[in-house]
């Protein structure tokens, strides 16, 4: 049951082979058994879950079920969900029960999907290892001594360990793709503006984008069909016709031009990852694709640019967490300024405070031009690199992460080392392009390796096609960690 695709689960539900309530209970039991080892979930509300499953069963009985009706998903704890504790991985929101639904949650609810719980994440999505969560680090199901990646680490671990049928993530600098790679699952960050950000707690507004994380590209496509669409409540949401992301899944790959950026295969990439990615490219050639070398010359600048722009936006986005209206307020304070200082000093973790400091600094009078404006200019150059590259290829491929999952605590003391693990993913966010990671083998210590697929704007259907054909030809995506 836990290895079935979303289509298969939906078919079983619609054929009444199993009820949504039974299915949800199976998953809740499994979560009870395994989550203590993984810490993938922050919040479970079984009554809410089962009530939703009951409603889904009613809908299934009337024959008005959609593709995802009755299927149990997990939601990253960055999405506000009515009646659910919504912490964003932070002590600051330890008591925040959302009075409203994020657009993504509404879309899943309208589809009749069931919410199993809220998954763990780096605090305010700031991190690449899930170690910055106030609710404890998440363990990688392939080796619980290792990190699952971040910031959507709880989702990645939950999907890999079959603690949900599939789940949502968000990606600001690689937060869907990197944990997907490190946990051996598939995840796609769509083109910026494709999925509404309404109700998704903001980290860096111009980079944040929600997307699906699942066991296959096909599952991702079905979820994207539900998650995307124009939303007038998000001014950056794009007004486009609704599309069916499964429409091109089966297309042959003959003539597909794959661009390999030389900067992605240079110093810093570990051998085991390089080998797995090269083997995947070889497989694509067998499927009829051709390969061209391309260049993304500003790749190296993407990290410094990102660590100016993302903290700048974050420093402002996180100002609303002041202890005045909701969330954490320090128990003792002398006056207003003291209340602000203590509430924020105690409510935010180290990494969040570091980024607020950086962001405040780069926006300050006298530094704005040198940092923020300069970074914006380079951001445009980075986007131009991709525009140039896509003149020569249909998709770009390379590693998602320079290494496989590292050990818990290994990079904790060195933020720059941690930031470098996002070297291949960050430029995609800066350009607003869609990016995906799919499993393509195993490296040293038998840890999963992710293949990154970058598409042109709005080319998600082609990327999913490219990923799906590979998954038909290989079985990396259906390997499961020992823990199950």
């Amino acid at each position, binding site marked *: 049951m836990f290895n079935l695709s979303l289509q298969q689960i939906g078919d079983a539900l619609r054929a009444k082979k199993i009820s949504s309530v039974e299915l949800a209970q199976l998953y809740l039991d499994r979560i009870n058994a395994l989550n203590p080892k993984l810490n993938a979930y922050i919040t479970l509300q079984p009554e809410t879950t089962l009530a939703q499953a009951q409603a889904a069963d009613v809908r299934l009985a009337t024959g008005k079920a959609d593709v995802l009706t009755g299927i149990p998903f997990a939601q990253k704890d960055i*999405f*506000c969900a009515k009646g659910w504790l*919504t912490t*964003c991985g932070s002590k600051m*929101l330890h008591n*925040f029960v*959302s*009075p*409203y639904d*994020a657009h993504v949650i509404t879309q899943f609810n309208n589809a009749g999907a069931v919410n199993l719980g809220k998954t763990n994440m780096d605090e305010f999505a700031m991190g690449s290892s899930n170690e910055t969560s106030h609710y404890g680090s998440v363990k990688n199901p392939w080796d619980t001594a290792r990190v699952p990646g971040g910031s959507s680490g709880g989702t990645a671990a939950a999907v890999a360990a079959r603690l949900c049928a599939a789940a949502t993530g968000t990606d600001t600098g690689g937060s869907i793709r990197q944990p997907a790679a490190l946990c051996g699952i598939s995840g796609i960050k769509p083109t910026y503006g494709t999925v509404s*950000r*309404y*109700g*998704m*707690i*903001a980290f*860096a*507004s*111009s980079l944040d984008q929600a997307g699906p994380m699942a066991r296959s590209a096909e599952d991702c496509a079905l979820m994207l069909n539900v998650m995307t669409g124009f939303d*007038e*409540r*998000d*001014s*950056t949401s794009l007004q486009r016709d609704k599309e069916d992301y499964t429409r091109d899944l089966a297309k042959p790959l003959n003539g597909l031009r794959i661009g390999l950026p030389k900067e992605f295969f240079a110093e810093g990439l570990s051998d085991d990852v390089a080998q797995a990615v090269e083997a995947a490219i070889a497989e694509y050639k067998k499927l009829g694709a051709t390969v061209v070398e391309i260049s993304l010359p500003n790749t190296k600048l993407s990290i410094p640019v990102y660590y100016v722009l993302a903290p*700048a*936006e974050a*420093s*402002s986005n*996180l*100002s*609303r*967490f*002041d202890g*005045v*209206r*909701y969330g954490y307020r320090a128990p003792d304070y002398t006056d*207003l300024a003291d209340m*602000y200082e203590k509430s924020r000093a105690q409510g935010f973790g180290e990494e969040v405070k570091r980024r607020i400091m950086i962001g*405040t600094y780069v*926006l*300050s*009078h006298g530094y*704005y031009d040198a940092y*923020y404006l300069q970074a914006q200019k380079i951001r445009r150059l980075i986007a131009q690199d991709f525009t140039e590259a896509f003149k020569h290829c249909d998709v770009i491929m390379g590693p998602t992460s320079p290494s496989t999952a590292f050990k818990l605590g290994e990079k904790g003391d060195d933020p720059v080392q941690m930031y470098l693990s996002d070297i291949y993913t960050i430029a995609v966010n800066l350009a607003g392009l869609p990016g995906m990671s799919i499993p393509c083998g195993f490296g040293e210590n038998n840890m999963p390796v992710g293949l990154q697929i970058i598409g042109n704007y709005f080319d998600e259907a082609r990327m999913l096609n490219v990923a799906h054909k590979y998954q038909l030809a290989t079985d990396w995506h259906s390997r499961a960690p020992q823990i199950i």
Partner: protein
Amino acid sequence: MTWEIVIGLEVHTQLSTNTKIFSGASTAFGAEPNTQADAVSIALPGVLPVLNKGAVERAIKFGLAVGAHIAPRSVFARKNYFYPDLPKGYQISQFDLPVVGQGALTIQVEPLSGNAKPYEKIVRITRAHLEEDAGKSVHGSTQSMTGIDLNRAGTPLLEIVSEPDMSSAAEAVAYAKTLHSLVRWIGICDGNMQEGSFRCDVNVSVRRPGEPLGTRREIKNLNSFKFMQQAIDYEVQWQIDTLESGGKIQQATILFNPDTGETKSMRSKEDAHDYRYFPDPDLLPLDISEEWKEQVRATLPELPIDRKLRFMAQKDEEYRKQLRHDVTVAFNRVIYGLSEYDANLLVANKEVGDYLDACASIVGSSNAKLCANWILGEVSAQLNRDVLDMMQCPISAQQLGGMLMRIIDGTISNSGAKEVFRTMWTEGGEADAIIEAKGLKQVSDSGAIEKIVDDILAANAEKVAEYRSGKDKLFGFFVGAAMKASQGKANPAQLNDILKKKLTG
């Protein structure tokens, strides 16, 4: 040695939209605290701003009304600072790319001192930008605690910034009054100063003639023209005294205390915030197409400056030549040929001029002067006495026009008209009915008047002889006596004619 005063204004006008600038919450004034604070107003995690088009259209309207450049692309920026009534920790405003660029406003200045004559001045407008209002901190409502009311948070504001073109309190007040009238005139702001819909910050500095600008101090949040006047007078004197006694002016933000009539420093430049402005990534740049601008232009009423021209114009062709075609839309183009003095009074607010137009449409433009006299005379006096504004005038323009028609056609005399007017004011009703009921119709039958005159002359033979021997002043005596005999109803013009003829006769 004399001092030159330099004044510039920043005015926050609350735009009259039903909903907030970035959410659908109501902007109505006076509701229970926090009942108009939706998820966006409270700044819940994850909520996003969506721009209210109505606020943008009001900004465009203002820009067009002051002949300003409307930016085809402007940008919303975040102004970051912490305050409990600022729920997001930043205010969404516009910084280096505002929606309205340079424009100008013509003002009529009434000097306060002595015999100086009123004069006209053009004040340049630097810019106007859209932003959201903050909430309110409510002190003292709960013991030792401060309450936060977020009903006002997110109310749309247009901040209008002038050049430092004013050189006296009188000019600053005239500018503020003209602006206040204009924003109400074009329907973008209710102008209610008690409710904070129109708030003025005044930048004041002084200098010796010919020297560079002095250091300015900013008087914040003046919400009455009287206070503005007092605050500027006090501040100017304080700055002059400080400089003349060898002191220096420090840049500062100051508050005016109406109870003491003094200004007091709130914070100095050293305490100034670093607002860390940057473009708001949650909002797209605001693009205003030519087409949108033209659609808004078509909704503009006739502007005060155009209306004044029309009220004064003597000849149609000349008036048309003078019209500013960039702001002129289809409206009633009847010209009246009034004096500049009358025209200024009649365009001081829109309702008065509307009333004149409605009245003149009944009596004809050639009788517009009569309408104007009545409006600026009896109507204004009664409104003042009853503390009413034009909108609350108990006599409609149609009623007044109906009465004026009876003056014009000779049915009633001026004094009869005054009685009709008084009755209309207190009891209502149409002129004809009142004239009938009160028997105010004047006698215009020449036979009847001749008879009265003959009787008077016969009864006063001596005086007739005196008159005929050169005592012209006695004419008034005969008029009075005849009028009395007619119970005030004789048509005065006719009576004059007949009397003259018979006395000389």
